[in-house]
């Protein structure tokens, strides 16, 4: 029992990331009808928002510390972040420590702006072109974005620690009434799951309970009629693109402490998220979320030792295998409508 619970937990954090990216992909697809291969790059840019904020906060000047000496006996030079001067030492350190959660605040406007620029500047011109062209141009854009990040941050992963308060582990076993120390789980990953649930429910609530969301849903169902009613649906769809970009960015920011961001982290996630979207059903938001979590958990079950003994390497291919089977047996995906994107 506890082993199963542990695998479910393991699957949840990856599943959360898949679900968030897939949600964004589906939002873009459902509203604009565009297949966005650059969505993984947005996830990566989000992660690098966290890196950048961390760098800015730790920027400082060198001060000679007279009380300490280095190994040659000279007075030690110590880097002092500017924040210490602004807020005092303990407060400054606390801010640096919390740089990843703080990056959330910064990443939202940054990602929305990037998303809107992307939509207005590039993707807008591709609505009328074939899907293959959309895939190709966003694929090219993803490469360009990756290379820009690589130019500024280098090719190596950059460790971005979570706040000290969340870097510990949580003894699930003891809390749930099993033996203590059987299910130990990193706090940050639990937080990631909670965070993704909040964001996902936030998006759903936004679409369901606000007038804006209602118009967007109407536009997804029948764009032309909404336009005929005198509503500027294009503007709202552009904003939805920005929102989807922000969701991908947030997923990236919060993922930075789990996997140190490097420039191709986005591509790795993107491919899987596409598979997730297809399994969930093109254009279905609940389907994307459900499939994200399901596949995350499935992957972690497939990497259990006894499964690997029977079918070695299953964990590496399970997601693709499921996707291929689903596509062949139930082409519209778990919760998709029939006939979406079938030309």
């Amino acid at each position: 029992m506890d082993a199963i619970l542990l695998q479910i937990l393991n699957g949840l954090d990856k599943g959360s990331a898949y679900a968030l990216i897939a949600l964004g992909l589906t939002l873009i697809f459902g509203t604009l009808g565009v297949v966005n291969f650059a969505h993984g790059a947005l996830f990566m840019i989000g992660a690098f928002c966290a890196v950048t904020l961390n760098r800015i906060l730790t920027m400082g000047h060198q001060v000679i510390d007279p009380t300490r000496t280095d190994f040659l006996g000279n007075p030690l030079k110590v880097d002092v972040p500017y924040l210490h001067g602004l807020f005092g030492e303990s407060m400054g350190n606390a801010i640096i420590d919390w740089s990843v959660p703080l990056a959330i605040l910064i990443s939202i406007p940054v990602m929305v702006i990037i998303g809107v620029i992307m939509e207005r500047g590039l993707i807008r011109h591709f609505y009328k072109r074939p899907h293959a062209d959309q895939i190709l141009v966003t694929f090219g854009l993803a490469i360009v974005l990756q290379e820009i990040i690589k130019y500024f941050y280098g090719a190596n992963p950059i460790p971005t620690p979570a706040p000290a308060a969340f870097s510990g582990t949580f003894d699930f076993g003891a809390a749930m009434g099993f033996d203590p120390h059987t299910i130990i789980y990193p706090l940050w990953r639990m937080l990631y799951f909670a965070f993704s649930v909040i964001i996902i429910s936030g998006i759903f609530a936004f679409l369901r309970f606000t007038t804006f969301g209602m118009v967007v849903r109407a536009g997804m169902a029948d764009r032309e009629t909404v336009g005929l009613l005198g509503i500027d649906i294009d503007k709202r769809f552009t904003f939805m693109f920005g929102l989807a970009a922000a969701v991908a960015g947030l997923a990236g920011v919060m993922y930075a402490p789990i996997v140190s961001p490097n420039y191709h982290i986005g591509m790795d996630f993107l491919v899987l998220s596409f598979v997730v979207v297809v399994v969930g059903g093109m254009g279905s938001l609940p389907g994307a979320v459900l499939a994200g979590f399901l596949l995350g958990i499935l992957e972690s079950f497939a990497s259990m030792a006894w499964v690997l003994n029977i079918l070695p390497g299953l964990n590496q291919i399970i997601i693709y295998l499921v996707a291929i089977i689903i596509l062949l047996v139930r082409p519209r995906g778990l919760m998709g409508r029939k006939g979406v994107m079938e030309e």
Partner: protein
Amino acid sequence: MLKMEKRDRNLLIIVTLMLVFAPFLLNPFPEGSVMAQFNAGYPDLMQRFVIFGIFAIGFNILFGLTGYLSFGHAIFLGVGSYAAIWMMKLLTMNVIPAIIMAIVISGIFALVIGWISLRRSGIYFSIITLAFALMSFALAYSVLTPITGGETGLQPKAADLRILDAPLAAGSTPRANLFGLEMSSSYKLEIGNWLFTFSAGYYIAAVMLLLSFYLSIRIFRSPFGMMLRAVKSNQQRMNYTGLNPKPYTLAAFVISGMYAGLAGGLMVAMDTQVGPERMFWTASGEVVMMTILGGAGTLIGPVLGAGLIKYMENIISKINASILHEWFYWLPDGLENLLVTVIYPFIGKGWHLTLGIIFMLVVIFLPGGLVEGSQKIGALIRRKLDRGKDKAKSSKSTKPAE
């Protein structure tokens, strides 16, 4: 001759001449000069041009004609490579059985994968092939290690079985050959400061490219090619006329898979080793870029695209900041530094950025690729010339009095 229209025959002749004289054409700068680093006429790179040219020609038969965008074609490149290397390990170091086996095995793989993935079209097809690509890579990397050699890959060893070959002399390493002619053997010709290398491997690959190119011309001009174009332009209408598009697309998929297998086999013939990274999905992305850059659906485009990308990968990527400084040393210091900082991100290690930008520009403005671009420029010049003639004519012709 060869049952071709005149235009195609001319194209084939031009390609043949270019392939034969490539060692000269790609080596325009004398040894030791500043420009020598732009020379691409060394065997290793020329072989790569040709092999990836074959790969792209094959991909173009699928994507250019039917419009099915596969993101998994590197699978067949990898499968072909593994098949070839196993022939070299088990049978003989002669490249012919290796290449034949590469084509056959990758054809079988293409048949299976194509049969499954062609049940869906559009974006779904792309994603299924992508899933297959990732799956094959993961399998080759981990579970299938006994067959694929896992992360380290495979290469022929002295102790391998090799039924047909005479036992190797002690201490010698097995080398790929064609009835005794080693792939790596080459003839060097020195004229003045120029050094030209003619490698056996390159010419064998070039012959393969010519055959592939000829076959692709025949496919493009055949009724079968027309059918494939019909699949691209309107499948529904094709259905209504009573034709089933599936067999045609599957045939195109298998043919392009076999082309990829041939390219994989040739890669092994030139450089006897394989690793799973050859079938990573980015390799599939690369052939997509080659085809689009050059011009999908055109005959010569994919070869040009392959050449362009491989040239950038091998030549542009070598330029570093100090070389840039050398070039612009004649400028005032401030201007020199400015120019170098502006250009630097786009060359050397940043060549991917340039490639990405060029690729995006081509997709946005020139859906027909470089071939369409050059055609447009050609048409523009012709129009200018015509207008010039018209003007000359109209000025000469006397206007009738009103």
